[in-house]
């Protein structure tokens, strides 16, 4: 299907999807976790309850690894626009490059500048200043999210520009319109909640693992673990329903500004009123129909327009060369929705168990929560696939085509970089994941014993000697 001419472009796209897909996990993790850490430290300062401090130290180690991986995978992104997407950079750089620079100046430096204090400085600066540093890092992650989503949203729903007739470049005309473009408020809310929800499920799963382990050995998990588990489930109870509302609003916004994307997501070929919602089907781009479709009557119109008589768009409304690859977005969207539903159910189940005072000892619930550890991140990735693949065949929606955005690179160069990135990422981030799991298998109390400071450089000596004792 892919001919030789398209192959470099296809590799460049796969490479971008791969590198950004790996990268996005870490900033999302950092955003959610830094908010959680701020909460923990704040509670510690307020209540003087050392359980909060122990939890803070415990998750701070995780944060330092996740943040580090986010930084190194992010540098790749800052250069990949130039290496692989020179056409895009040359034309859209005057807008997206400027937004990215603001991100670096307002967020990255702030995070990096205060991270050292947050990790190593508790005994140097005192509690208040340390809390300030934690807040600064958290604020940095949120500012970073704001700029990058402004930039991404502008590519989806561009406005505030004029196109230079001579060079084809996007010339900024109104910066406020560029930043506060129509999809930005919905996208940033959806993304922010996704980050919180993802981290809540990770924390909950770590708690569930310790609770199950304690149960197995016939002991009761200590109160720090129970506190952590309880906090994370409250977080799920609050954010899961909010996320569903935010997602619904984001969908309405997309229907208004990018109806062709919605048509691809829904697998709808002809525009119609009283449309069904397809639960399953295989959209066929050649025959222009969705095979093996199973749907619920009227639900499609109702979900998209909040009216069973509402009119939904169809892919045939758009020329064939302006349609997103429906099979990909059809499934990524449905996986996201299914995971979202499961997450909501987990939250409701936790409320029920909490009421019956079985939150910490219901084996099936604990196992389900453990299994759901990656659910938030999976849903987040599926969401990104939906919105980014759904933007195709454009980089700047309706204005700049993906094929006109690529760099003039030889197939050999692209193949080299693709293999190189896959090898490096799998090895490095695979090692990182193993290291995270190892960290989470320790209990928060162990984190407390290591020293009087939060993070001690060279604390490996301790770990190594512990291992020796064990063996």
């Amino acid at each position: 299907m892919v001919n030789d001419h398209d192959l470099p472009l296809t590799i460049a796209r796969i490479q971008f999807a791969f590198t950004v897909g790996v990268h996005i996990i870490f900033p999302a993790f950092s955003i959610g976790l830094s908010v959680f850490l701020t909460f923990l430290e704040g509670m510690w300062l307020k209540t003087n309850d050392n359980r909060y401090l122990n939890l803070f130290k415990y998750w701070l180690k995780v944060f330092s690894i996740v943040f580090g991986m986010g930084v190194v995978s992010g540098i790749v992104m800052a250069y990949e626009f130039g290496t692989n997407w020179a056409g895009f950079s040359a034309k859209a750089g005057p807008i997206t490059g400027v937004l990215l620079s603001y991100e670096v100046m307002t967020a990255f430096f702030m995070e990096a500048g205060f991270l050292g204090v947050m990790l190593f400085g508790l005994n140097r600066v005192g509690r208040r200043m340390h809390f300030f540093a934690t807040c600064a890092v958290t604020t940095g992650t949120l500012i970073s999210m704001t700029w990058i989503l402004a930039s991404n949203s502008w590519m989806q729903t561009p406005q505030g520009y004029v196109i230079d007739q001579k060079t084809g470049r996007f010339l900024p005309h109104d910066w406020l319109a560029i930043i506060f473009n129509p999809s930005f408020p919905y996208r940033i809310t959806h993304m922010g909640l996704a980050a919180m929800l993802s981290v809540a499920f990770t924390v909950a799963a770590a708690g569930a693992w310790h609770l199950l382990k304690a149960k197995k050995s016939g002991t009761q998990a200590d109160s720090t673990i129970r506190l952590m588990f309880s906090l994370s489930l409250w977080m799920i109870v609050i954010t899961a329903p909010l996320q569903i509302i935010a997602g619904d609003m984001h969908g309405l916004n997309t229907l208004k500004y990018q109806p062709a994307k919605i048509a691809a997501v829904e697998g709808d070929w002809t525009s119609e009123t009283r449309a069904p919602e397809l639960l399953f089907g295989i959209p066929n781009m050649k025959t222009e129909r969705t095979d093996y479709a199973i749907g619920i009557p009227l639900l499609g119109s109702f979900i998209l327009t909040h009216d069973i008589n509402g009119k939904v768009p169809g892919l045939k409304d758009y020329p064939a060369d302006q349609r997103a690859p429906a099979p990909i977005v059809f499934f990524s969207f449905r996986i996201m929705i299914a995971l979202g539903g499961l997450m909501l159910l987990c939250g409701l189940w936790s409320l029920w168990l909490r009421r019956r005072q079985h939150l910490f000892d219901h084996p099936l619930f604990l196992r389900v929560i453990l299994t759901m550890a990656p659910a938030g991140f999976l849903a987040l990735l599926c969401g990104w696939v939906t919105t980014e693949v759904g933007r195709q065949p454009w980089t700047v929606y309706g204005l700049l085509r993906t094929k006109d955005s690529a760099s003039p690179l030889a197939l050999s160069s692209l193949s080299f970089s693709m293999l190189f990135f896959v090898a490096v990422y799998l090895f490095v981030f695979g090692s990182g994941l193993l290291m995270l799991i190892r960290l989470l298998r320790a209990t928060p109390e162990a984190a407390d014993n290591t020293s009087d400071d939060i993070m001690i450089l060279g604390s490996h000596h301790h770990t190594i000697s512990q291992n020796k004792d064990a063996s």
Partner: protein
Amino acid sequence: MSGLAFYLPFIWAFIVILAISVYVILDGFDLGIGILFAFEKKPEHRDIMINTIAPVWDGNETWMVLGGATLFGVFPGAYSTLLPAFYIPIIIMLGALIFRGVAFEFRIMAHSPNHRAFWNTGFMAGSTLAAFCQGCILGGYVQGVHTSHGAFAGGAMDWLTPFSVLCGLSVVTGYALLGTTWLVWRTSDELEARCRHWSKKLSILMILCIIAVSCWTPFLHAPYLHHWIAFPNILFGLPVPLLVALAGFLMWRTLDKEHAITPFLCVIGWFLLSLVGLAITIWPYAVPPTLTLWDVASPVPSQLFQLVGTVILLPIITGYSIYSYYLFRGKVTKTDGYH
């Protein structure tokens, strides 16, 4: 060309050179410490070396992201031609920086000595390779990039020449020297003594590199030579080699004495002078030898909007970066690490 369209790229060229200089110096000693892992095998010394940079290296590396992002926003024509031109060394450099960056965390949290040894090697190899690639990119940049209609039109391996390899080796040497002099300042006892010793050897190597690159550069393109010998440029150019000699002299003298920070400052001087020399050489090209700063610049509204932010934010960034350095100041020793 109207006033702003003429002056803004000029201001931005200054800011970009500043950001690159800050990056080269700050991450230069981080990378230098990684390079020195090849020679310093003692675990306690390695821990001390890492501890001198652990709280600040992340901020140092951010200057590189700023450099990339600024090119993207302000000189998109340079960003979109230079990055494809140096595709291979940039990709390798990014991979090397990934190894270097995660090795910081992973070596601390390693669960076994073997595991730790592996990440130590990763830290060393990543730092060295990243430094070498940066030098190759610099050399390839100075020797010029083939463009057509404002886009890169050369081959994937054009950058690889004896000159760019020399530049690669020079940068590795220079970063190692930045690392040793940084450690002279920030460590004590045996490690400090060893670093003073290394600094001497490396400074001889470094001055040879500076001479070799400086003598070779003017003959890469006819205009380069012209820049240096034409009047009145020679008046600006002449002090550069003199100042290099002066800084070298001062460093050599202070390495034998109790001076802690002076050698480090002298090496910084060398780097800044080299960069100034480079700027004089290639002026006014952003993509030598075809595209000038004005050819590759963003439209005025982009440059202006970003300038407002930069003027406000850079001093603030500098402020809290200095605070962070201040907080973790002083000699780092085995016992008082971060207690």
